[in-house]
């Protein structure tokens, strides 16, 4: 099947939220953006190492979706999860320190960028195996259901993960057992360098949900309004009916897959066109047009985000290394 890689028109239209809420979501997108821009810089400076996958361009998905959840809900994410951790409530300093490898990091510096964990905010990783989080999410959903908890489990994964057997087994289990799992597919058209039409014989990912008798929704993932409203719908349906829902967020990654990617698999023009749909500036423009945001307010939000980043970096810089003697801590089977 072929897929149109051209960017549709930018998101537009009214924002059906009060100013407060709208600015909170804008602020979160900015926080992610600034955190990641700084991360890229710090990678260049050798402060962050290993694999670093940026979410730049996709912020509307995590922000819009996660604001539709309650704090009792579980979240399972991928290796591209700084945004999810941040929106979920993890301190930026804990994320930055983790990427520095400091013990003040959320996982004592053992996991780095791809493995953000936070029991407090019910973030179960940060999973670097594509599709690896899906079965875990089903299990978390099963536990919630069997224990009679009012708790959804939201699982993020990319278009690339859809080809993995784990996707198939997981969706079937969730639908068969009517588990409260929200499947959030971040379809950014590429899995690393492989365009979706070169990975999927059926590129309409919502059709896949039907093959598990699971309801599916599709939404413009560059539009934080649409993302949030659609996710709210899905969540409401799940809290009422109990079963899983699949949501496809159509989004785009503005940066390379990781810091090692030469990006020879896509045209610069394609990327540039998609940038005109950027979730932050289009949302900003809409808010301004509605009189819900002034340029000063925007600059203020941005400044706050930048300050938070500076504080996080300072926190990470001031952090300490886990003592080497603790290497075997948390392994009980030497």
């Amino acid at each position: 099947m072929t897929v149109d890689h051209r960017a549709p028109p930018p998101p537009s239209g009214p924002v059906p939220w009060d100013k407060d809420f709208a600015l909170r979501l804008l602020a979160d997108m900015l926080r992610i953006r600034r955190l990641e821009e700084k991360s890229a810089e710090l990678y260049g400076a050798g402060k962050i190492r290993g694999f670093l996958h940026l979410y730049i361009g996709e912020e509307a998905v995590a922000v819009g979706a996660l604001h539709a959840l309650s704090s009792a809900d579980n979240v399972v994410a991928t290796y591209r999860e700084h945004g999810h951790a941040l929106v979920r409530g993890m301190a930026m300093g804990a994320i930055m320190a983790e990427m520095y490898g400091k013990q003040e990091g959320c996982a004592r510096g053992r996991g780095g960028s791809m493995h953000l964990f936070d029991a407090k905010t019910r973030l179960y990783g940060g999973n670097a195996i594509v599709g690896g989080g899906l079965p875990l999410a089903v299990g978390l959903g099963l536990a919630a259901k069997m224990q009679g908890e009012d708790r959804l489990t939201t699982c993020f994964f990319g278009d690339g993960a859809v080809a993995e057997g784990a996707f198939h087994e997981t969706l079937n289990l969730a639908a068969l057992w009517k588990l409260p799992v929200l499947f959030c597919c971040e379809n950014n058209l590429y899995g690393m360098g492989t365009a979706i039409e070169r990975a999927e014989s059926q590129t309409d990912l919502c059709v896949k949900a039907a093959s598990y008798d699971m309801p599916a929704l599709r939404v413009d993932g560059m539009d934080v309004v649409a993302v949030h409203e659609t996710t709210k719908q899905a969540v409401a349906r799940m809290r009422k009916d109990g079963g899983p829902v699949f949501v496809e967020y159509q989004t785009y990654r503005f940066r390379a897959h990781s810091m090692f990617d030469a990006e020879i698999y896509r045209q610069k023009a394609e990327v540039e066109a998609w940038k005109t749909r950027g979730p932050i500036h289009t949302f900003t423009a809409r808010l301004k047009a509605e009189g819900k945001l002034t340029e000063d307010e925007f600059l203020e939000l941005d400044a706050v985000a930048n300050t938070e980043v500076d504080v996080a970096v300072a926190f990470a810089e001031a952090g300490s290394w886990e003592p080497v003697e603790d290497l075997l801590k948390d392994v009980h089977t030497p």
Partner: protein
Amino acid sequence: MTKKISYREAMREAMHEALKNDPRVFLMGEDVGCYGGTYAFSKGFLDEFGPERIRDTPLSELGFVGAGIGAALGGLRPIVEVMTVNFSLLALDQIVNSAALYRHMSGGQFSVPLVIRMCTGAGRQLAAQHSHSLEGWYAHIPGIKVLAPATIEDARGMLAPALADPDPVVIFEHGGLFNVEGEMGDSWEVDITSAKVRRAGKDVAIITHGGSLPKALAAAEQLAAAGIEAEVLDLRVLRPLDTATIVASVAKCRRAVVVDEGWKSGSLAAEVMARIMENAFYELDAPVARVCSAEVPIPYAKHLEDAALPQPDKIVAAVKGLFA
């Protein structure tokens, strides 16, 4: 008071007790429910505990083992039955890349109190795809505990401490043991930390586990007739290995043979030999020998299967070789 029960009944009783005593415990796997358990280990459970807690799964080893991990993360105490170790290959990613790593990788925030049970081993003419003995592979992975109950008592007693363990525990049940019967008292104490001497001896230590234990004991009887008193050590816990008990047996006997149904190269037997090399080299009067499976896919034909697997006579020959 003792009663005669089979290995199968012992494991069934252990699961029954766990399901009765702890509402967080549930059993999940292919055909554990309506079918009554592939090997009848859970016969009658569905009626007694209902389909939520005796949960039949689709054929989706990766998915339901991963679901077990998630359920453990979510506060339950799942017993996941993978029909056989052969099919567990489909689930290894979840076991190695999630279950085993979560506690350390999350900086100690999360734990996976999960029990995975599976049938292992050959000897029933099930041919190459149904006859693997890969417990040695699992014993290589930090973060999981690996058990191999070889006696009625261990079949009855290992599950409770495994479920109490805060980390993933994999239990290997050798298919050749299921119908073995034995006396079982009303009280027993079974730890999941130590190896155990099953037959005391002084001339040679035969170190083994699982389905090879009866063969080692049979060999020891033959050796006794020939004037060699073999000590038979059952490893029981394959990870972490109880090095001290291994060393004690070897130091006493000064000779050792390791018996392991895994293929020889890269077997768990090799690890036992390495531990002896590291810790008891100077106690040895002869190099340690091993009796493992031939390095071949296990054939269906009985005479070939027998030839491929460790057998009492091969163990006897290996022991005698040490005295030559």
